[in-house]
């Protein structure tokens, strides 16, 4: 197992590459989800405020 992790002595180059890829794939996946949730909550808050003003 450790021989595999060593990547023939290139561990310092191979694993950061795969690590950065993972981080970028996760970040670009989560970010639109957060953006969509933020927009929905914004609109919901505005709707609630409008309802209160109408009373």
């Amino acid at each position, binding site marked *: 197992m450790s021989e595999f992790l060593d*990547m*023939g*002595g*290139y561990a310092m*180059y*191979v694993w*950061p*590459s*795969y690590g*950065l*890829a993972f981080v*970028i*794939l996760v*970040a*670009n*996946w989560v*970010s*639109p*989800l957060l*953006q*969509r949730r933020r*927009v*929905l909550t*914004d*609109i*919901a808050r*505005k*709707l*609630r405020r409008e309802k209160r003003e109408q009373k």
Partner: protein
Amino acid sequence: MGSPRYFYHVAGKMIPWFAISFLLTLIAGVYYGLFVAPPDYQQGESYRIMYIHVPAAWMSMFIYIVMAVAGVISLVWRIKITEITIISSASVGASFTFLALVTGSLWGKPMWGAWWVWDARLTSELLLLFLYLGIISLYSAIEDKRVAARAISILALVGVVNIPIIHYSVEWWNTLHQTSSVTITGKQAMPTSMLIPLLLMGISFKLYYGAVVLMRARAEVLERDRNTRWVRELVEGEIK
């Protein structure tokens, strides 16, 4: 078909399919690339960076071409959805370009002995990153999103000339970066056992882009149509 509401629902249905097929091809690609493909007779194990570097570089160019085509459509027919596609692709395109540059540098250090050289391929890819960042900041700088969309369409078009330059840089100039080793027509320079994971990763990144651009576009559509009735109904539906 072009109505944002219809797009919002259709995209919502397509995303899970993109997501599942992306994950399957990613797992197969990474497993094949790290465990099954043999070490390179010259570079040993370090060439495995290729399975991230090359698909990321392909994506950085592919996404920019999609943005340029969407730019033409937006400028000529002013269709809202294509305008939204441009900005929805920008950050994932910039991320893949950044990933290609960093993994290329991580591969270059052991192979060339340098983190960075002002080589035609590397420099044009760096220019591509600045184009992406320019598009993102230009869009956020302009208040009116329809005007902003026109501006980034023009910038995307102006920058598209850089894509053939990146692609052919290794043929035109004497570059340290190797020439393309995956050619559809020519003799394969790579044994199939190494080629399969590369193609798997290439497909997987494309499926990933499909899912992410739709997810971002849905958020953009909601933001743009926040005052419309269908968005209000959608939000009210979700509050209960």
